[in-house]
């Protein structure tokens, strides 16, 4: 395919879509499929035929619309009418009233406008709007024009300059400046070079990367292409969790389509001699594999164990060659930056932390789902304005930001802004983007114990602070939650937490004590109650031996 062909495909697809007056987007992502989305899709296809409107109404299978708690969700364009909890039985009514008569079915519409008002969709620009299984949909939405622009008019250095200007930082959690990372790999004089896209979203309670892959796989591929051009890489891998079958399927299809249109492979777009090949690699259920040196070991077919840095992957990564590792969310931002310029991108968010961030908002919150917000928004806005606060008249207790190794923040810190530095200051992390809301039914001591247990399970066992330290911490928690806690335990926990944080080899160990440290910092009262009065207000702890034996 040549540059002109790309333009032609886009125009053809636009004409094709213009022929339809309406478009019904049925969310068929992993959040909605278990609840009958495929049956709803089939029902829509049948219903438009039954009413004889199949020539003016297109039924499309799309990715996540974002309102995962009221699935299956259906979006009718034009007008962005969002229907919630659609069942096959309700489909005929929607087609009859909305499509045939032009009267939206009000009582089935998603009424919570606040959910979308404070969101800002850059990464998820196409999610729920395009059919991820059709490359033409992506191309007509402006897709692959950014890589075309790079190849036709920009030098690799020019691309890196734009990414630097944008201020984009790695969305995998650590927040390393993306442009700087690219410069390092570009400067390395050792060939071939590799790119690894990190889609090993191991955090329980987080599904933003999966959603992106299911909804807009080509955005990830295009981001990788641009990165490859900028740093001079010829081969890329997408490392994806094997627990994400639909995302794998979607990506496989997308890669095959891109190859067949020679957007991957040799002589891409017949502009210069740029070539890039892409393969999927499957994870196998190891949380630590998301760490950048561990992911390399796993792609090479070994145990996913981190190694000390330096040497950094930028100089010595896959098979000891220069390797660029980026989270897929970071990569999905790249086409936008190339298209609109780094300066344009840097206007969203805060000066030090530009752009947006996707979060999985879950737990005891009214509107759980997948959200994308500008950096710098406050936690209160996310939990109460977008999330709708705590349901069932319960009282808000804490918000856990950053997954199992994030921090538990109390109500007094809800004015904290979401950006890498502010979150670190209060003891939380951006992590991979999980926000879990806890209400008065959660016990903070028990919560910290739960996360410690998770990190013990997932510790690779290489370094002692993480392997042995976390086990000791859990022993203390078991003591406290069984009524044998002593006052000295608090100091021991504090000391151990700080020690594990400072002495561990990789990000897993360094962040694992965060729940311990933050619950001790903000909810010390609960620890005292557990130890001195043997009382757990949430009723989670102090199960008798009989009760435990029963389990």
């Amino acid at each position, binding site marked *: 395919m040549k540059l002109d062909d790309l333009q032609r495909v886009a125009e053809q697809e636009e004409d094709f879509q213009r022929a339809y007056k309406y478009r019904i987007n049925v969310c068929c992502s*992993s*959040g909605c499929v*278990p*609840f009958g989305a495929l049956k709803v899709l089939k029902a829509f296809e049948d219903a438009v035929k039954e009413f004889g409107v199949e020539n003016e109404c297109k039924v499309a299978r799309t990715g996540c619309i974002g309102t*995962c*708690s009221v*699935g299956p969700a259906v979006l009718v364009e034009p007008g962005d009418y969002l229907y919630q909890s659609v069942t096959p039985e309700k489909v005929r009514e929607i087609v009859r009233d909305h499509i045939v008569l032009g009267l939206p079915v009000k009582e089935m519409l998603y009424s919570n406008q606040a959910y979308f008002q404070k969101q800002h969709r850059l990464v998820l620009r196409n999610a729920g709007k395009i059919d991820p299984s059709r490359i033409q949909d992506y191309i007509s939405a402006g897709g692959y024009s950014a890589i075309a622009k790079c190849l036709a008019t920009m030098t690799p250095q020019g691309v890196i300059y734009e990414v630097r200007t944008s201020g984009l930082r790695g969305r995998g959690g650590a927040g390393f400046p993306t442009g700087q990372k690219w410069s390092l790999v570009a400067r390395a004089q050792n060939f071939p070079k590799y790119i690894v896209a990190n889609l090993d*979203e*191991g*955090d*329980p*309670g*987080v*599904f933003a990367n*999966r959603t992106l892959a299911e909804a807009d796989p080509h955005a990830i591929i295009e981001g990788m292409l641009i990165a490859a051009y900028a740093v001079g890489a010829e081969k890329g891998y997408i490392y994806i969790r*094997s*627990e*994400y079958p639909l995302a794998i399927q979607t990506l496989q299809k997308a890669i095959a389509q891109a190859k067949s249109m020679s957007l991957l492979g040799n002589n891409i777009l017949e502009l210069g001699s740029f070539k890039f090949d892409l393969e999927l*690699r*499957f*994870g*196998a*259920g*190891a*949380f630590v594999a998301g760490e950048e040196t561990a992911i390399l070991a*796993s*792609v*090479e*077919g*070994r*145990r*996913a164990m981190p190694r000390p840095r330096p040497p950094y992957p930028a100089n010595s990564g896959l098979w000891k060659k220069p390797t660029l590792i980026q989270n897929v969310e970071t990569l999905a931002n790249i086409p936008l930056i190339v298209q609109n310029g780094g300066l344009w991108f840097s206007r969203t968010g805060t000066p030090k932390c530009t752009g947006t961030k996707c979060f*999985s908002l*879950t*737990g*005891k919150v009214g509107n*759980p*789902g*997948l959200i994308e917000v500008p950096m710098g928004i406050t936690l209160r806005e996310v939990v109460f304005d977008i999330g709708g606060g705590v349901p069932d008249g319960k009282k808000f207790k804490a918000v*856990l930001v950053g*997954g*199992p190794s994030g921090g538990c923040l109390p109500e007094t810190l809800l004015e904290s802004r979401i950006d890498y530095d502010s979150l670190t200051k209060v003891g939380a992390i951006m992590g991979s983007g*999980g926000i*879990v809301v*806890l209400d008065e039914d*959660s016990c903070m001591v028990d919560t910290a114990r*739960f*996360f410690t247990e*998770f990190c013990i*399970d*997932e510790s*690779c066992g290489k370094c002692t602070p993480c392997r042995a330290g976390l086990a000791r911490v859990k022993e203390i928690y078991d003591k406290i939650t069984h009524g044998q806690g002593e006052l000295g335990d608090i100091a021991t926990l504090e000391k151990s937490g700080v020690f594990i944080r400072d002495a561990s080899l990789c990000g897993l160990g360094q962040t694992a004590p965060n729940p311990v440290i933050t619950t001790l910092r903000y909810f010390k009262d609960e620890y005292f109650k557990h130890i001195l009065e043997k009382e757990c207000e949430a009723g989670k702890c102090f199960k008798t031996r009989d009760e435990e034996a*029963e*389990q």
Partner: protein
Amino acid sequence: MAKDDKRRFMLEKVLKEHNYQESALLEILHHAQEIYGYLDKDLLMDISGSLNIPPSHVFGVTTFYSFFKLRKPGQHIVTGCLGTACYVKEVEQIMEAIEQEFNLKRGGSTSDGKLSLLITRCIGACAMAPNIVVDNEVIGKATKELVIQKIRQVLSEEKKIEA
């Protein structure tokens, strides 16, 4: 192994596709588990021989990743999601109820081999928490009653087929 000719043939094809390369070990293990259902000692020895790498390396990699099953699972598999969102929404109570009702422990199977209860750290349907998966069907916003009823149903369907 010899008596499973067809499955061994499929495995050989996978090995060949990956050029018997050590770096493809994870991919090969994934395929082998798909073909055989689980990875037992003989199978791992076979893979180790085919790739010409030490058995300790193959065992090391296999046991490191929780996705690989080393024991034969039950005919029906119930998986409880113990991710954060499900934990906060009391999935623990449902797990305890299943364990009591069907007399098995998480990670194990019933004595007749009909039912296994596994845990996973997140299936990613957090907005519908708590989630329990019964034979690949996700039950979202699960309750004890719903799940137990569903498990009884899949178990009884089997009896019907047998009869």
